[in-house]
């Protein structure tokens, strides 16, 4: 069963067309990695899927709900981890989690926040302002923020960007622990990481899908070469 369905999705900013007739689907429990050069439209695609941006045209169905008709319900089921942690710098780690937990109507906020702070190894810094955190620590807290409401679908926009190896291990461990019941779409430039985590891969170039296959249907070297050509093409 498809958890995410995208049909003929278009997005324009003024005259610039960022996404051109993008269509694909991801099964429930699937993990899709999206690759592509800078400016290809990957982040815009994730922003549309996570309801932050509105599409110019096309149809998106998430968990059997149509984007634009059930946006609030969709938002309850999705989480986003991006290279921007979406955290308030002058709130403490706990206050940030409490704030987002309240927005999502999480019950037992305190317990859930404590549990996640423990998982991302930030319990000892829970009352410190995020302003005092390193990039890696803020990103670990961003992971906790995104998981606060136990989303079914996770969008990951370059989640490993700026993370130290320890934080990468924590993120990968958390992703691994929730694999199976969750659906993932990850945008990344890290070929090895994206390939190892996912069960299907996609390359976007200039707003169009130029490759979308199950991982076992494609040779890794062939995929690497296609990706290199796409990056050169946009460069």
């Amino acid at each position, binding site marked *: 069963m498809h958890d995410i369905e995208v049909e003929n999705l278009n997005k324009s900013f003024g005259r610039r067309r960022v996404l051109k007739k993008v269509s694909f689907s991801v099964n429930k429990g699937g993990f899709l990695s999206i690759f592509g050069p800078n400016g290809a439209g990957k982040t815009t695609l994730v*922003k549309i899927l*996570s*309801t*932050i*941006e*509105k599409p110019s045209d096309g149809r998106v169905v998430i968990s059997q709900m149509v984007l634009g008709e059930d946006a*609030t*319900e969709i*938002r*309850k089921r*999705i989480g*986003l981890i*991006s290279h*921007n*942690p*979406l*955290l*308030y*710098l*002058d*709130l403490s780690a706990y*206050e940030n989690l409490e*704030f*987002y937990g*309240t*927005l*999502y*109507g999480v019950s037992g906020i305190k317990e859930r926040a404590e549990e996640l702070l423990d998982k991302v190894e930030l319990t000892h810094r829970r009352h410190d302002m995020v302003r005092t955190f390193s990039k890696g620590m803020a990103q670990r807290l961003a992971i906790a*923020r995104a998981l606060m409401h136990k989303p079914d679908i996770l969008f990951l926009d370059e989640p490993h960007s700026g993370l130290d190896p320890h934080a990468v291990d924590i993120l990968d461990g958390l992703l691994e622990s929730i694999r199976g019941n969750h659906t993932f779409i990850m945008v990344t430039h890290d070929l090895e990481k994206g390939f190892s985590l996912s069960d299907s891969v996609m390359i976007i170039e200039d707003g169009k899908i130029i490759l979308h296959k199950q991982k076992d249907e494609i040779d890794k070297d062939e995929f690497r070469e296609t990706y290199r050509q796409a990056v050169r093409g946009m460069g």
Partner: protein
Amino acid sequence: MLALRQLWAILKKDILLELRTKEMIVSMLLFVMLTMVIFNYAFEAEKNDLTTFGGGLLWVAFIFTSFLGLNRSFVHEKDEGCLDGLLLSPVDRSIIYIAKMLGNLIFISVVQIAAVPIFTIFFIRYPYYIYWSHMGPFLLGLVLASFGIAGVGTFVATLAANTKRRDLLLPILGLPLLMPVLAPAVIISGAMMGGEVSARAAELVGTSMQILIAYDIVFFVVIALIYDYVLGE
């Protein structure tokens, strides 16, 4: 109930951030005080009776002070990238608007509470508090006009937050939209600070109150309904 908890969470977060950073209140207080000191010297308030101009002077100071604060009302969301976090959450956009608007109203009111007594000492020969019956209409006019400024100002600040020249856009769009608030506000404040109120002035104050109430209701409802589009574009 969830909507009320979400509203309170956003409002509490804005107040907490302001208490910690003091970025908005301090600049607003400094600006309003400076404006009054300059007016005091410019109009030689000690020699001249400025009662007639009192309402105008008061609202010139308040409107630009409010813009100063409104310009910063989305600064944490924009500069720290947290607007996406708000948009991502299952919060009705009208709740975001009401929470941000109430936050701005509180900050504007705090500045007014500090500024009105000083303004009265500087400029008014027959301060409204000598006439206790004037206190109610004066405060009501202040609250209604501030509600309008916070309501429309939050809307324009949201539009401006998505542009590079947000400092410029707020007064350019905001001032024309707020003229229907400023004119009645000046009339009410002026009449209430000027000693005895004639029957004609009392009638004018009543009409001004009605205009403010109508403006506040219409703009509040319309903006709350269209705020989703404002945030989305």
